[in-house]
Structures are given as C-alpha cells and as structure tokens.
C-alpha cells in the first residue's frame, strides 16, 4: 500500500469519526453554543411536582420559553421549589402569572405551562410565582372518583 493512499484512508477515517461526534453532540443531544447568560431565573412553589424532571419544558401558550433547571424541597413549607430558566427575550411575565404542571398527552412527559395575568407590574428575575397548580396524579383522581361513587350508592 502506498503511503499516500494509506494516509488518505486514515485521515478520512479520523474525519468520519469527528463528524460522527459532531452529529451526536448537535443533532442527537441538541447541544447549542448560545450563551446561557441571556436567560433569567424565576421560581415556583408547587404542592406536588411528581413526574416533573430537570430539563422539562416551560411554555407559554404551548410555545417553549425555558427549561426547568432545578427541583428541591423547601424545608419550611415542605412544598417543592422549582427553578426555571426563562429565555431573556420573554419579558411580559406579570406578577400575577400562574404556573401549572401539565402533561403532554395522557401518558406523555410533564411540563410547566405559564399563563401571564393582567397586572401592571412585571416579575423580576429571581421572583417566585405563588399562583400554582400542582401535578395531576392519576391515582389520586381515580381514588377520589371511586370514593365519590361509593358515597353515592346508599342514597339511590
């Protein structure tokens, strides 16, 4: 084998490997090189966040505006404190914005839906949303439904 063809083949192989790496980084794991600085943090206190994960979507009217960056337990109220990074371009979040944990589809992933209110004042970075709606737990719903049915029966 001539040295030149050998070097060409090895070089092509190394480049193919690097291209595969780039594909895995950008197309598969969705890595972007935009600075994370142009986003701000807001917090939400939820009674129940079951099923919500870090990196879950935060949406307004179904449009992606941010991601959940951390979920921790508030040691005083025993409620969940969810940290959300919101895209810096989204500025119209009023202080009476409400946040709800929603499910895409019946069995899909959980995400946070924000609904801006009508207040004049805007949420500052680091502010906490008080008006929240917890994650829907199917088992609790079914349990309530069953107990309602059982309570109804004797009256009929």
């Amino acid at each position, binding site marked *: 084998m001539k040295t030149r063809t050998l070097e060409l083949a090895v070089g092509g192989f190394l480049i*193919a*490997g690097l291209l595969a790496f780039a594909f895995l980084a950008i197309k*598969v794991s969705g890595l972007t090189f935009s600075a994370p600085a142009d986003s701000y943090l807001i917090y939400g206190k939820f009674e129940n966040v079951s099923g919500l994960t870090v990196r879950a*979507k935060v949406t307004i009217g179904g449009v992606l505006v941010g991601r959940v960056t951390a979920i921790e337990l508030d040691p005083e109220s025993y409620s969940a404190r969810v940290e959300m990074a919101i895209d810096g371009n989204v500025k119209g979040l009023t202080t009476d914005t409400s946040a709800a944990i929603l499910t895409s589809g019946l069995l*899909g992933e959980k995400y946070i839906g924000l609904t801006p209110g009508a207040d004049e004042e805007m949420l500052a970075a680091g502010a906490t949303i008080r008006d929240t709606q917890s994650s829907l737990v199917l088992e609790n719903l079914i349990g309530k439904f069953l107990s309602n049915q059982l309570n109804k029966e004797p009256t009929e």
Partner: protein
Amino acid sequence: MAEQRDLLSRVAGLGAGALEVIEATGRAGIMLFHSIATVPNPRTALPLLAKQIYAIGVLSLVIIVVAGLFIGMVLGLQLYRVLVDFGSEAALGQIVALTLNRELGPVVTALLFAGRAGSAVTAEIGLMKSTEQLSSMEMIGVDPLRRIVAPRFWAGVISMPLLAMIFTAVAICGGWLVGVEWLGVYDGSYWSAMQNSVEFGEDVGNGIIKSVVFASVCIWIAVFQGYDAEPTSEGISRATTRTVVYSSLAVLGLDFLLTAVMFKGF
C-alpha cells in the same frame, strides 16, 4: 491411599491453575507497561501508528457501518410495534438514541472489534513470534514491544471510540430511516424527543468513556495473547480464540460495572 493422592493432585492442579492466571495477568501488565511507558520518537512512531490505524480502524469500518445500520433499523422496527400500541411512537427517537449512546454503541462495537480486529492482531503477533521475527528484532537491537505492540495498542485505543461514535450515528440514522421514512413517525418529534432527553455529558460523554475503556481492554488482551502465544500453529489458534472469548466476556462484565457507576440515578 490412592484416593487421597488423587484428591491431593486435584487440589494441587487447582492451585497451579490459579497461579498460572495470576502469573499471566502479571506478564500482561508488565508487557503493557514496557510497551507504552516510553516516550516514542514521533518521526518513526507516527507512520507505524497510521499503518495500524488503517489495519485496525479503517478496515473495520465496513462491518461497523453495516452492523450499525441494521441494528438501528431493527430497533426502529421493534420499538415502533410496541410504542404505537400506546400511541407514543413519538418517543421512538428518544429510546433509540438513549439505548445506542449508553449501551449498544460501545458494547456492540467492542464485540465486533474483538472479532474483527483483535483476532487479527493476535494472529499477526503470534505468527511473528512463531517465525521468530520478534527474537530477530531483539537481535538487531529493536525493541519488539515498542515497534510491534505499542503502535497496535494505541491504534486500537484511538480507533475504537471513533468506530463506536460512527456506529451510534449510523444506527440512529437507521432508526430514523425505518421509523420516519417507512413507518411514518413525525420527523420533528423523532429528533426533538431525542434532543430533549439525551444529555451531552451524561449520555454521549459516558458512552465515549465506556468505549475508551473497552478499547483499552480489548486491544490489551489481543496484543498480550499474541505476544504470549505458544509458537505453534495450535498455539496461535488457541490464542486467537482466547482473544475473542476473553475480550467479549471482559466487555460485557465491565459494561455492567460501568453502567452501575455511571447511571446511578435509576
């Protein structure tokens, strides 16, 4: 009396076997240390390395690409059948990408690598030993560990992670081909479900770390089995078989350990 002697010789055999294993491990470690613990001269080492990357990496490309394509297509086909029952075929991309990045990519590549490249390396070095090329090299003052073993070792360590990434990328495209082009999963949800769930460091990075570990172990076993082979035709045949068997077992065992350490969050 005869029974006792029989039992005694069996126990002795057991001990001898264990000693043999420990001794072989020691020889393997010393060989690896002597071959890679020296600073190579880039003038002579780079052409040798390029030649070995060609033999070990480039020539393995075909089997890796074909295997990756078909494994990805089978994953797409099988997962679609199950997922469509729950109406969640949009998660196809996510499952395909996670399984490939975390497990299948590094492991299947390592198994194919052991069969395709590891066995060839063992047979080559074993034959060099049996035709006394290694000892004649020593005679003229060339260290066979640096000249023969080191380039093959580094070529394996460099090639296999690249092969594993190519395998994963091709397999994800194979899954896309079947899921999106053939079975009609929505193209946007295939990629977006994937990007939402695959974390670069956690999944892609750990997969690459895995394949580097597998590469070192596989190529180490291959060069050692060749270097340590009995210089007869049966000896080389046994060494080649041992390379494939030991490498496969080591890869599967290590994969369990690495997964347990890396993905504790489950």
